[in-house]
């Protein structure tokens, strides 16, 4: 197992090098000069030159790249041109918001998706199966921002039962310590704010979780059906095992594998969805941070935040692969 992890980590190195080159090239392939883009229409040549020097754009390309990678290796992810603060610190303060949202979205997607998929598989080809398929297709095809705004309109504007955005009632003056609203509210000894935090989580979690929910539902359904038709399941039933036991020991145990893979990939994918969901719901996470950086033409921030997203994605995939070993003893990593 240890060897496998080391090999996977080594395997990630070329991926990251490739990615760093692509991201580096991306900024340089964009039409125009980032310095001009940051400073605006009527910037004087001296001002543009100063900004180019600040951004390191006045050096030869290879020097720029080596400097960039050297910085990354030292753990220096650069700083934002807007407030000159180290990027890593900015990301860390916003990460708890994204984590809270992602976990909530996954709880929703897994908690609803798996039972829904199992339900559909039990009634395969029936009308309820068809209904589930339609709903999950809708989940995949509705753009997240449309779904988010629609949810806001229905539940916040029309029904008035849930807040339209934000992480907590701004009038409540939550004292921020850990940046996890749910933890901070408890630290303050305010269960009412904890509940308010949960209420703020519901709509963005549904919006963000809609695509994973749809995929998890469909994979669960397909996987359960697959396994159900296998010989060992028939044998188990023939032995006279109770249906419940057949389900848990013989079907689900095997059906989990593809589902877990998909869940793992979806967790990584949620970062992408978070960019939109966080913007729609005024959610102060890393997703919206990227959008702000793009709006501010803060190229280094965009470049390195995407690199960090990629790192997270790789890490999540690795963790999922390791989890495999636990749920499927047939897999031996060596």
């Amino acid at each position: 197992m240890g060897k496998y992890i080391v090999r996977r980590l080594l395997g990630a190195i070329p991926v990251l090098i490739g990615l760093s080159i692509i991201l580096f090239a991306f900024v340089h392939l964009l039409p125009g000069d980032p310095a001009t883009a940051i400073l605006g229409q009527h910037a004087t040549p001296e001002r543009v030159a100063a900004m180019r020097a600040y951004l390191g754009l006045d050096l030869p390309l290879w020097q720029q790249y080596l400097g960039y990678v050297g910085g990354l290796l030292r753990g220096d992810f650069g700083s934002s041109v807007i407030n000159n603060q180290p990027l890593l610190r900015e990301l860390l303060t916003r990460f708890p918001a994204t984590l809270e949202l992602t976990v909530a979205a996954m709880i929703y997607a897994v908690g609803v998706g798996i039972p829904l998929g199992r339900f559909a598989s039990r009634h395969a080809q029936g009308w309820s199966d068809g209904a589930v398929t339609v709903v999950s297709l809708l989940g995949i095809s509705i753009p997240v921002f449309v779904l988010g705004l629609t949810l806001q309109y229905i539940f916040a504007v029309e029904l008035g039962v849930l807040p339209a955005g934000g992480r907590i009632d701004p009038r409540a003056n939550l004292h921020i310590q850990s940046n996890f609203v749910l933890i901070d509210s408890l630290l303050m000894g305010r269960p009412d704010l904890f509940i308010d935090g949960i209420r703020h989580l519901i709509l963005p979690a549904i919006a963000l979780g809609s695509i994973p929910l749809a995929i998890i539902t469909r994979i669960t359904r397909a996987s359960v059906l697959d396994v159900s038709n296998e010989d060992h399941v028939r044998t188990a039933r023939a032995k006279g095992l109770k249906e419940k036991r057949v389900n848990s020991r013989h079907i689900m145990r095997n059906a989990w594998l593809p589902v877990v893979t998909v869940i793992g990939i979806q967790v990584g994918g949620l970062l992408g969805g978070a960019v939109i969901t966080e913007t729609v719901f005024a959610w102060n996470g890393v997703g919206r941070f990227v959008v702000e950086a793009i709006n501010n033409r803060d190229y280094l921030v965009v470049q390195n935040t995407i690199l960090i997203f990629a790192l997270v994605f790789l890490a999540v995939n690795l963790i999922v692969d390791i989890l495999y070993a636990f749920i499927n003893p047939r897999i031996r990593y060596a």
Partner: protein
Amino acid sequence: MVRTRIGALVAAAAILVAACGGAASPTPAPATSAAPSTAPTTSAAPSTAPTTSAAGTPKAGGTLVVATPGDINRTDPALVDDATSTYVAQQVEETLLTLKPGTGDVVIPELATEWSVSPDGLNYTFKIRQGVKFHDGTDLNAAAVKVNFDRWIKIPKAYVDLGYTYYIDFVITAQVQGVTAPDASTVVVTLKAPNSSFPVQMTLTPFAISSPKALTDGNASAPDFKDNKYATGGPPAMVGTGPFMFKEWVPGDHVTLVKNPSYWNAAAGGPYLDQITFKPIADATATLNALQSGGVDLAQTISPVDVATVQGDSKLASIDRGSACNLGVLGMNQTHKPFDNLKIRQAMAYAVNRKAIIDAFFGGAGILASSWAPPGTLFVKELALPEYNPDKAKQLIADSGVTDLSFDFWYPSNVSRPYMPDPKGEFEAVLRDLEAVGFKPNPKNAPWSPDYLAAEESGKYPAWLIGWNCDYLGIDNFLSTAFFGYRGDPYGPGPEFAYKNDAMNQAMVDALKATDEAGQKAGWAKAQDLILADMPTVPIGSSKTPAAAAAYVKGLVPSPTLLEFFQSVWLDK
């Protein structure tokens, strides 16, 4: 929308230097008095009587939640130029002079009780209000004001390089020679060249006066910006004299201000609110949803397309800011044929149905242009701009004798600006109008930034759509810095429009040098008349920035430049 173009002042500076450098005859001091134009030499505190929202007895208390389209950038008013950062800072830190609430052109005293200008237009003397304390308990006096000016004058180079000093560059660095404080209540600012717009510039939030103690404690002039606490959230940060005090900034999430219980100008009424929380909501529809669901009480801006929804909702009130601080024009460059011909330029103006464009593309927030600056601008003159008249356009073309009526006509893609909400739609409408009278425009487009901007700025386009988001509602900010001021080397017209009229430029120079209101007014009027006669561009219109609030939000005085003070705001619930 305060801000957009760096370098606006480059132009203003150039025109001033031109003013000095030329064989200028010294401006004779007005015989009567050197009282500044808009200067009521009074010590009366500004009144903030609300002019909108229903009357009623203001109630104290409550939290106002304000949705802003973005987060603030920094917590030091001197180092910001975006509309959201200044919107927050203007509640906390005050300027020597300000604008009468609801206007863009009436300068009134704030931390100065009066001001005057020397006959040569170079020395501005401000009398500093006594008995005012900063939020940290220290006193406002002439020395404190001088500390602020000195800090702006000696702003660290790193901040300039980072692009944080837009306003300091063009108002202080380019113009101010030095500052003295001869006694505890007097500050004298010496300019490098006369500039009658200086008082209006002093109303800009970046020139708010901060507590010297807080500037020192917050390391506000740290050579490395990373060490500057004053601008990055503090403590201390944003320590001024205003009706609200800065409490905290959680980047990306919110800014919280609390009531200043010992505000010096409480006699004017307010502050009533206990707290103001600013929350960035980037998406326009999400902003509307937040308003309608009661999550926020006031939106700094809403999308023009949502105005109708707001008006149809009895729980909300639509806020009309009266005028705008931007102007869209149909640009023409006189180095390109056929635009070297006056009759052709006039024909362009008669050919375009400007009113139809405003109605079709400005979403109910448009104002038809009546000069080269929006209504409500200080010293703007209502001109008899050509009305839509295709026959007259054809006649002018015939009279011009020009036979080759083809030219490249450009519009930008991937952009929407306040003065140009739908560039492509507007372009197509103008194109049809021009073709209808016989012009042969060749449609072209380029991505807004940097291609389009770089090309139009350097005079590569014969005809194109462009405009200006102002820095303040002063006529100079439109005429001299944005469009027609002489700059370059030697001082001459900018390459953008290549419009040269020495008499017009001299009229602007005279207006900037004049120390009396009559002289300023006359100079700007002459400049506008000459521009009308030359028709260098066709002014189309401006777009107001709409806002909305819950119906229970009372006492807000809308401002065309978003200089809105929450001192008078209260919650009727």
